[in-house]
């Protein structure tokens, strides 16, 4: 009952000064629109860039690295410490993961694991006329690569399936293909490190967006790679794991590495810097959005102050007929928050429209073959934050003027006439 009256009086004051109110509301609308669109755009970009790394990378990778033998004979005599005589060099065959098949089974049965993909990396020379171009062929399990790393998204021409359907086939990195003038359907020659020559049919191009990668990396099925190396079908050099929970990857790597007797690298160790980039981009967009809101807050503050100055008489009458300071404060807070809800609500809606607009803008770049328009995030989080902020600023901007109004002395106004 009483709030209804306060609300009605606030509404009447608002309508009586609707032009000023509109200006104040437009300020809030503008800043919320920009806030939501900016954060949506920034985070769309962030997600895209993160995805570039995250989607392509295993959470944990098991592999063997060529390292010097950790047991150097001198330590047997002098113990640990600064022993600078080291003699035992790395020995061959270390790249192979022992018991690969068993490890794969073991990982597949682990409840924390989303999926597993074995891989073979092999160094080759592509023989182009008289010259040899170095390259790396990744022998992959096409099905697993597709489901875990969206492999087919990066096969810009040709068909990823063909790797398994056509024997001795290869998907060339776009950079490497361009250098070799290799078209789809052509047959190229590759020489392995041990000197064996193979003829491989090109069935597609691979383009990741990272130039260095595309110049070197090519893909073949894991069985083709095993054939090239002359290894049996349980040979693999890498086991890539995706976990259900991304954040568990460091712990998982630490736990399983020693058990399997391999190196275990987790994604956070491998890409320590990428989180920092997203955080900073986020911070910048919040800073810009909040600055806009503060500016609009000053607008509201000004307009309420002006309104109170104009409505001195009204305030004096209200107090004379029995409204308390608290009631008067409530009236002006209602006005401020009304502007916030109205302006902010429209701002959220326009922000959504603007996001959809940005989403339509073509954005095609060589580096990002899967992206056709600007990426935009519609995460409701930003709309909630925007809404809360608009209420918060209008509340703060309204508080001081409302307090001033509540402390107006009616006697002074009435006597002043």
């Amino acid at each position: 009952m009483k709030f209804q009256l306060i609300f009605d009086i606030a509404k009447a004051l608002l309508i009586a000064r609707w032009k000023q109110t509109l200006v104040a509301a437009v300020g809030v609308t503008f800043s919320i629109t920009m806030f939501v669109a900016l954060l949506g755009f920034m985070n769309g970009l962030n997600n895209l860039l993160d995805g570039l790394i995250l989607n392509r990378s295993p959470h944990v990778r098991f592999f063997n690295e060529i390292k010097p033998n950790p047991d150097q004979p001198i330590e047997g005599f002098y113990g640990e410490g600064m022993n600078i005589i080291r003699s035992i060099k790395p020995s061959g065959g270390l790249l192979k993961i022992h018991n690969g098949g068993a490890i794969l089974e073991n990982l597949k049965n682990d409840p924390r694991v989303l999926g597993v993909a074995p891989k073979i990396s092999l160094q080759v020379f592509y023989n182009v006329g008289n010259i040899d171009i170095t390259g790396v062929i990744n022998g992959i399990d096409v099905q697993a690569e597709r489901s875990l790393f969206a492999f087919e998204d990066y096969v810009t021409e040709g068909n990823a399936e063909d790797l398994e359907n056509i024997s001795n086939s290869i998907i060339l990195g776009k950079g490497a293909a361009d250098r070799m003038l290799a078209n789809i359907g052509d047959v190229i020659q590759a020489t392995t490190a041990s000197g064996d020559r193979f003829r491989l049919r090109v069935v597609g191009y691979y383009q990741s967006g990272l130039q260095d990668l595309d110049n070197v990396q090519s893909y073949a099925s894991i069985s083709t790679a095993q054939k090239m190396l002359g290894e049996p079908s349980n040979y693999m050099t890498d086991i890539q794991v995706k976990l259900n929970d991304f954040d568990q990857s460091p712990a998982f790597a630490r736990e399983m590495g020693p058990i399997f007797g391999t190196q275990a690298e987790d994604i956070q160790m491998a890409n320590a810097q990428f989180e920092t980039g997203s955080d900073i981009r986020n911070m910048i967009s919040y800073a810009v959005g909040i600055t806009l809101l503060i500016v609009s807050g000053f607008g509201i503050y000004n307009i309420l102050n002006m309104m109170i100055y104009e409505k001195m008489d009204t305030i004096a009458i209200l107090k004379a007929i029995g409204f308390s300071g608290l009631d008067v404060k409530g009236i002006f807070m209602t006005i401020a928050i009304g502007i916030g809800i109205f302006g902010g609500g429209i701002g959220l809606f326009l922000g959504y429209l603007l996001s959809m607009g940005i989403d339509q803008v073509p954005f095609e770049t060589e580096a990002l073959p899967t992206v056709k328009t600007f990426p935009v995030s519609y995460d409701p989080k930003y709309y909630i934050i925007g809404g809360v902020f608009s209420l918060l600023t209008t509340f703060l901007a309204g508080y001081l003027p409302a307090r001033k109004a509540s402390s107006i002395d009616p006697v002074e106004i009435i006597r002043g006439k």
Partner: protein
Amino acid sequence: MEKKTVLEAKSIHKYFYNPTKAEVLKGLSFSIKAGEFVSVVGKSGCGKSTLLYILSTMDTDYKGELWIDGEPMRKSSPTYLSRIRNEKIGFVFQFHYLLNEFTALENVMIPGLKLGKYSKQELEHKAMEKLRIFDMADHATKKANQLSGGQKQRVAIARALINDPLIIMGDEPSGNLDKKNSDIVFGIFQELAKEFHQTLLIVTHDPDFAAGTDRTITMEDGKILDE
């Protein structure tokens, strides 16, 4: 039967400190009984308005004691005083203090809505009745700033009556009106006193007006000259 005392003031002192310390009210004491029509007269600047602001509880910066309806006002909280003003005092100013954002009818209803004793429908009915008494029913839906001065003052009086106050206070309520309109306002007060036994305390400059009231308090230089 002894009539109830509506308002009692005991040695009211009021000082202003700006520009220099000045004692404007110098120990006023008097009381008003239920149903009395009292007028206050005195030279300009003798402190009539100052006294009225204190009696209406809007000014709390004074020395002395004030009882309204038997309750001491001296130590009450501002919120409580607001309630007293809303419930027990009807105030009519010299200038027509109406809320220009609202219609005449709404202006009359607002103190009633604030009190919350009656429903909106009941109040609308009541307010219409008051406006009808003052011949203002036809103008009920006009915005306050569309009314003439005399009409505004009649609406203001109707507003002062809406909560059936214990006492109506007026500070030269007809001071800003022409002869015809001030006669109308005076007639209204007479009618309220006679027919409805309304207690009234009205500051005036008009000797004819004062002569028509039950009792006249004459002030001079911050004191009551005679009763």
